[in-house]
Structures are given as structure tokens and as C-alpha cells.
């Protein structure tokens, strides 16, 4: 049977049950949220300033390190050196220099590297073959020696 407000008995039961519930105290305070938001905003601004300051400091240090040498009076030794050194690459053509023996240079480098590896890691650093050949040469016998000699 339905009441005039349109609720069924089941609805009324549910209404009564919901009406017995009480709101739990909030874990978040509005004031707290506003405060935290403001602090985070300030932290972001602070980090921005810190980052900017760090970048500027680094840029300053780099600029100090890379600043050009101050111009000096003509009698300084560096100025004298500059006058005596030609930096025109065209003037220093290969015709004035012995061509490099690249193979020997490579062998040189290989030795230096190998020496360092052996001192650091021991003789295990020296490469060896596995001692096994893929296509072993046939053993020399009297027959194939004769054949070899007769073919020349």
C-alpha cells in the first residue's frame, strides 16, 4: 500500500535508516587546505628563485673560466709568442711534413693500451686464440708432398 507522498514502506525504512546516520568529522580543514596551498605556491616560487640563482651562478663561473685573456702591453712574452707563431693552416701544408704511418701509430697505441690493461688486470688481458681452427689443413704426407712438388 502506498502513502500519499509516494514512498513505499521500503522507501520509508530506507529513509529512516539514512536519517540515523551522522556526518563524520572532516579530516581536512578548509583553513588547512588554504594554508597548504599558499605554502606550496610559495615553495614553488622559492624553488624558481633558487634554480635561477643556481643557473646564474654556474653561468658566472663558466664565464669567468672562459673569459678571454686581457690585452697586455706589446712587450709581454705571450704577445711576443703570438707574433712569432703562424696559425695559418694553409701555410702548414702537408708538403712540409712527413706523412704519418697510421699503421705504426695504431700499433703504438695498441701497445700502450695493452700494457695498461696487463698491469691493471694481469696477463689474462692478453688475447689468445682458441687454438682450434675451423678448416684444419690436411696433414702433410709423402703422397701429398710429391703432389705439391709436381704441381709447381
Amino acid at each position, binding site marked *: 500500500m502506498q502513502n500519499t507522498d509516494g514512498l513505499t514502506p521500503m522507501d520509508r525504512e530506507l529513509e529512516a535508516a539514512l536519517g540515523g546516520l551522522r556526518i563524520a568529522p572532516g579530516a581536512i580543514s578548509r583553513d588547512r587546505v588554504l594554508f597548504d596551498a599558499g605554502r606550496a605556491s610559495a615553495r614553488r616560487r622559492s624553488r624558481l628563485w633558487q634554480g635561477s640563482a643556481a643557473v646564474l651562478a654556474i653561468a658566472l663561473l663558466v664565464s669567468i673560466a672562459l673569459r678571454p685573456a686581457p690585452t697586455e702591453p706589446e712587450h709581454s712574452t705571450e704577445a711576443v709568442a703570438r707574433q712569432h*707563431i703562424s696559425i695559418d693552416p694553409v701555410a702548414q701544408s702537408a708538403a712540409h711534413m712527413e706523412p704519418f704511418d697510421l699503421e705504426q701509430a695504431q700499433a703504438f697505441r695498441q701497445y700502450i693500451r695493452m700494457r695498461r690493461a696487463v698491469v691493471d688486470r694481469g696477463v689474462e688481458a692478453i688475447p689468445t686464440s682458441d687454438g682450434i681452427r675451423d678448416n684444419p689443413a690436411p696433414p702433410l704426407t709423402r703422397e701429398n708432398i710429391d703432389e705439391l712438388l709436381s704441381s709447381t
Partner: protein
Amino acid sequence: MTRNVCRLLAVAAIAIALCGEQAPAADPPRTPTIRTIQLQVDPAPEPRFALQYLLETPYMEQRSGNAALLYQTAVGLMLEANQGDGATDRDTLNHWYNSPPETLPVEDVRTAISRFGLTFRNLETAAKCERCTWEYPIREEGFAYMMPQLGEYRTLSRLLCLKARLEIRDGALDQALTTLRSGVSMARDLGGGPSIIQHLVGVAIAAGMAREIEGWVQTANAPNLYWALIALPDPLINIRTSIQMESAGLYAKLPELLKLEDKVLSNEQVLDLWQRAAALLGADQKEPGWWLSKTMMIAGAMKLYPRAKARLIEQGHPAETVEAWPPLHVILLDQHQQFRAVSDSIFKWTYVPYTQARNGLKQADQEMSQLYQQDGAAMANPFLIFLPATQRICFLDARLARDIAMLRCIEAIRMYAADHDGKLPRSLAEITAVPLPTDPLNGGAFHYELAGGKAILESAIPPDGGPKDGLRYEITLR
């Protein structure tokens, strides 16, 4: 109250008694992390003929000829023999070599090494040769020449070690001595060659042979090798030739450096020399920006000129002469003089026993590091890179000498035991029949003590080494 006190005292007494029973039965090791080897040996007197057993071929038994050729032939024979079915791969060989002798798969090893008979005979013949001259063009090529197939000598030595191990195990001590002699001779000859890498290979081979001699001394009725070990050259592996090559090897490719005092180079010639040095160290003409790097080289050199000039004048060159030289010649001369000073300050210590040279080597290394950083990184002295880490090399030499010296001590102990009713000496001072070596790695006498029926012979972990560089033998008489 009295009853409770009595109960408390009873409990305390029981607890104390239990703690007493938990006391360790034996003394703890002196240095627990040190490399320790247990030896069970028999007493062994001096042989009837003291020099009956030798680890080198005596002069009058030698043959004419150059052992180097036979060593190279042995490498070729080994590679030829180890092919086809049943060939031994490197990993298996290394596994056998590194395994304790008691775990060696005897028949497998015997089968594997049986194919190297001709190789071993070649090495025996090499050990009898009266000279070993590695006729490389090393004075012409310098560092550019490296002995081919050097790694194969390590394989040869491992085959020899396994052969000796089997022979010792079989009681075939005459054959084992021949094999040990082949290995020791190869180590001596290879290590005395004209490069540091070759020298270190020789040191490693000798260390392997020393390990096999440990097996010898543990063999029942094995003859005493005290005088065989004393008769070895000291040092066994001579470093002189390799060090002299290393200190002058770069001049084979940069000979102008030797004449800088007499022949002034133009700026262009100096640049050419620096470029050649750079090529030897890794850069070459074909790299992009080759000319750019040259410009940077000049720019960096200009910064060095004032100090280089000041140093040369301080060393006694007339100021007007230095002023007149091309600036790059001034810089190059200064660099080379620094290089020579540092090089000699390092290599001079290689002629001094390691315990006396240790601090000098360390100081020279530090000076080299400081010099390398001097004047900024832009044009650091490029020639310093050619110098090897000499302190480490001398350390390895001293460690090998230590291993051999300890074997001498072990044989002296066996000799003492044979002369004293099978008893171990209470101290090394009690051994008076033969002289005992000192510790070449740490200086002074080896540590010795009797503990729990064992003789403890120890070389402490050196200050510039790690636990594996110390060595402790715990010797028990059978």
C-alpha cells in the same frame, strides 16, 4: 632470601661453566683473510749431492742456439696440434689449471696433453739453449712492435703446469723436474725480453711454476729443492731490458726529442712533432677538425710559453738564447726535460730492492700526476702518457720473489725436520744448516710460529697490496 641467593649463585655457576666449555679448541688464524695454503710434507734432507736437482740447465749441459726460435716454434706446434676432434678449448684448460690438484680429472687431462708431445720436446730443447735473443726490430719500432702471439705463451705454460702436476702425481719426479725446468726457463727467457708486457707474462709463468713446486714438496719422498731454488737467478725475471726499452721507446718514433738542445726546431716542426705524438696516442690526420685541433694546440701552447721560458732560464740556459728560440721550441724543450726528469725519477728505483724502493716509487708516481695537471689540462705534457705504472710492476716482481723465497724456507724446514727426528723447528732461528731468505715484499724475516702441531710460515699482507698478496703456509709433517 638465603635460599634465593643460593639459587642465583647456582645458576651463575652453571652459566659460567657452560661458557667455559664453549671456548675455542684451537687458536684463531693470525690474519683470517690472508691467502692460506695447507701443506702436508715429509722431512727431506739435503740431497747427497747438494746440486743434484736444478731448475735450470747447467752451463756445461747447454747447447748452442737461440731459444727464442724454439719458443716461437713451440707456439706454432701447439696451435697445430690442438685442432680437430678432441681439441681442448681455453675455458676447459683454464678450469683444469685453476682446480685443486685433488679434483683434477686425471685421465681427461692426460688424454688432452698427450697430443702436445712435440711441443713439450721443443720447450725442453729451448731450456737447454745457451742464449735467448728476441731479435725484434724494437730499437727501430719502439712501442709499435709487440711480440706476436704473446697470449699463447700463457697457454703453453698452463699445459706445462698440468703436465708437471700429472707427473708429480704419478711419482715420475725426474720427468716432473724436466717439465718444471722447461717452465722456469721459459719464464726467465720470456720475462727478460724487451717489453713490460712480455716481462709480466714471464712473471705470471714463473708464479705458475712456483705453484707446481708446492705440489712437489708435498709428494712422498720428494727430494729437497732448497739448493735448486737458491741456485736460481735473483731476480729470476730480469726487468732491466724491458725498463730500458720503456724509458726510451718513444724516441723510435720521435727521435728529434733527443737533439732538442742542439737542433732548434721551427714552430712548424714542433707542431709536426706534437701531431705525431697525438697520432701515437689516438688522434690522426683523418679526423674531422684536424686543423681546428692544431689551432687549439697553438692557443694552448701560448699559455705555457712564459713558464716554460722561466724554467729553462732557471736551469741555466742563457736568457738571450731562450728569447731567440721559436716559442714552440721553448715549450717542447721544457716538456721533454720534464718528461726525462720524471722518467728517470721513476725508473731509477727499478734497480733498487722493492722494500727500499717502495716509497721512492710512490713519490715519483705522485710527482708525475702533479706534473700532468700542471699548466692546465689544455696542453698537459703529452709525453708522460708513454710511461708505465712502474710501482705496480715492481710490486708484482717482488711478490714473485716472495713466493720463491717462501718455498726456500719450506725446503729449509723439511731439511731441519729430516735432521731433527722429524720435528718442526720452534723458530726460524733454529734453522742453522742453511741460510734463510728475508721477505722481499715486506722486508725483514718471515713470520713463523708453531700452533696446534703446525708450522705457520707467513708473509703479511703488504701495505700496498690486498689480502691475496699476503701468503700463509700451514705446514704439517707426515
